[in-house]
């Protein structure tokens, strides 16, 4: 249920966007000049690829997506500052050590993803796949760590506004990490298709962007949930 609500942002939305768009006109987006003043169609006319717009579309989408998180963060801050009730009875605060390790893994995975993109840019496909796979592994590690933390917590979703906020924020972010890993798997699979990068690397760039986005969100989340514990 929750998934269907969040779905637009995680499931069909981000997963589908580059693919749906790229699918129709796989040919030649690189020939699209980015001239200002609206000359982007110049001379080529109609049916040619729309692929060059994928990144534009994806960036717009991410900007919009980030506002869901902004809204959730705002809710968290308002609740934390104004609620007459906060931590559930018997809960002192959150354990920071393991989440911190998790955080380091996730944040450094962004660097690894960047290495992968650079390798792809240099047409070093083997290295790209290696770094890419490592990024996926680090992302999965993070999700597993998150799941472990959830298992061990003494409060649940229905335990006051704190419990609700904690699970909603981490869960919603976790969904993004999972979809990021799935998108990377898709890109990895595609990298084995011959001629996949003839039309540019928009897909990988978009997923890389998504991954950095997910990381930045987590940094804010980590600061809000784990570091800012006193009221």
């Amino acid at each position, binding site marked *: 249920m929750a998934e269907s609500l969040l779905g637009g942002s995680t499931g069909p939305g981000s997963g589908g966007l580059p693919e749906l768009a790229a699918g129709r006109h796989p040919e030649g987006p690189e020939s699209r000049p980015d001239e200002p003043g609206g000359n982007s169609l110049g001379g080529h006319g109609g049916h040619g690829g729309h692929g060059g717009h994928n990144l534009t579309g994806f960036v717009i989408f991410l900007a919009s997506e980030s506002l869901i998180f902004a809204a959730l963060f705002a809710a968290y801050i308002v609740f934390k500052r*104004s*609620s*007459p*009730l906060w931590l559930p009875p018997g809960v002192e605060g959150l354990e920071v050590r393991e989440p911190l390790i998790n955080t380091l893994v996730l944040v450094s995975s962004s660097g690894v993803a960047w290495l992968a993109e650079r390798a792809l840019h240099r047409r070093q496909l083997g290295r790209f796949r290696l770094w890419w796979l490592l990024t996926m592994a680090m992302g999965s590690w993070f999700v597993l760590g998150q799941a472990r933390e959830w298992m061990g917590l003494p409060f649940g979703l*229905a335990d006051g506004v704190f419990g609700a906020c904690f699970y909603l924020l981490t869960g919603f972010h976790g969904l993004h990490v999972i979809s990021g890993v799935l998108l990377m798997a898709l890109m990895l699979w595609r990298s084995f298709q011959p001629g996949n990068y003839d039309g540019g690397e928009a897909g990988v760039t978009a997923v890389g962007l998504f991954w950095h986005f997910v990381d930045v969100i987590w940094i804010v989340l980590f600061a809000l949930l784990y570091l800012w514990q006193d009221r």
Partner: protein
Amino acid sequence: MSDSVSTATGSGATSGPQGSGTPPDRRDPGLDRGAVVLVTLGVGLDLLASRWLMDQVPHWLPPQASTAAPLVDDLFGLEVGIGCFLLLGCTAVMVWTLLFDRTGRYDRDDGEPIEGNLTLEITWTLIPLVLVLLIAWQAIRVNGQLASLGGKVRVAGAAEALRLVGLEGVEEIAAAGGAPGVDAAAGAAAPDHSSALRPAQAGSAAAIAQASERSTAALAAAQRSSPRAAAGATVASPPAGPPPAELGPVVVIARQWSWEFIYPNGVRSGELHLPLNRPVRLRLLSLDVLHGLSIPAFRLRQDVVPGSVIDYRLTPSREGRYRLRDSLFSGAYFAANQTDVVVESEEAFSHWLETALASPLVPNPNLASDLWEQRLRQGNRGWATVAPAAPPLVNAPLDATAPHAG
């Protein structure tokens, strides 16, 4: 004749329309005497019409029964006047073009290719800007004088709200209603309602007085954080003579679907009795969902928010019986959730309060419950709703048959 005016002005202005931003004189006044006369006549008529409409405003509104009402009405009248002037002016332009700028059946020529006029565009940016800032300034002044909104304190649910206002007697009910997973209204509708309320009545005056001191302090502290409102409070007192002592706080409890008023001396009432010309402080709380306290004759309205206790001040200024309505949708029998405000002289009010104190608690007449019973009798058809809360037990029930003045 008008046709000739139209062509005359047409030949006069090749540089595009000029004039002040108000629509009727968007013509070229400098060059054509006919146009000047016409525009002046138009603006004059527009002014007269707007003035006339402003005078009609009182006929559209309920009687003015609080000190807030004249302020609000004057502000509204000002807006009606300005709005009417603009609407008529713009309409005049459209009607003019409809009458005189229509093309012939087979004439497909183009009009004058006027692409813009910077002066004119700046004018009609500035005029609305000045107008709305003027209205806003006036509204801020009026709002400061009303200063009706007092402090607001967040509470964790109905039980804590009742504790804050000193009504612990009904706490258990509220707690049952407020527990997560149980519907507030269903809980409040529990049959032991009356038995739980009765002990609360005994000695409740002292408890309420004590608690009201505590909560007044809390609410005042909450209000101090917004200094403007506090500053406005000094303006709010009536202009002549020493301000009469404030009545209250009168605790107003909103439920699905009933109103209950509890006076500082412990009297519970189904209708709100207020002494004339004396400021009163209401302390609003809801035991279930959002409600709105709205008294059209007072021109005042305030949402009643579960999870908050809100203070609200007003001063009635006209004797009579007026409607008090729920203004924020609260579910199935929302429309039935209304009662009366009775404004009466100081003596009549004291007499009422004394009589009420001596009266036994009886269930207040409650239209929502009646309608619900009726629905159950007819086979409970219709879509789902929570059951109405049991009617509050009051010393002074609502006189449902008395006519109201607005």
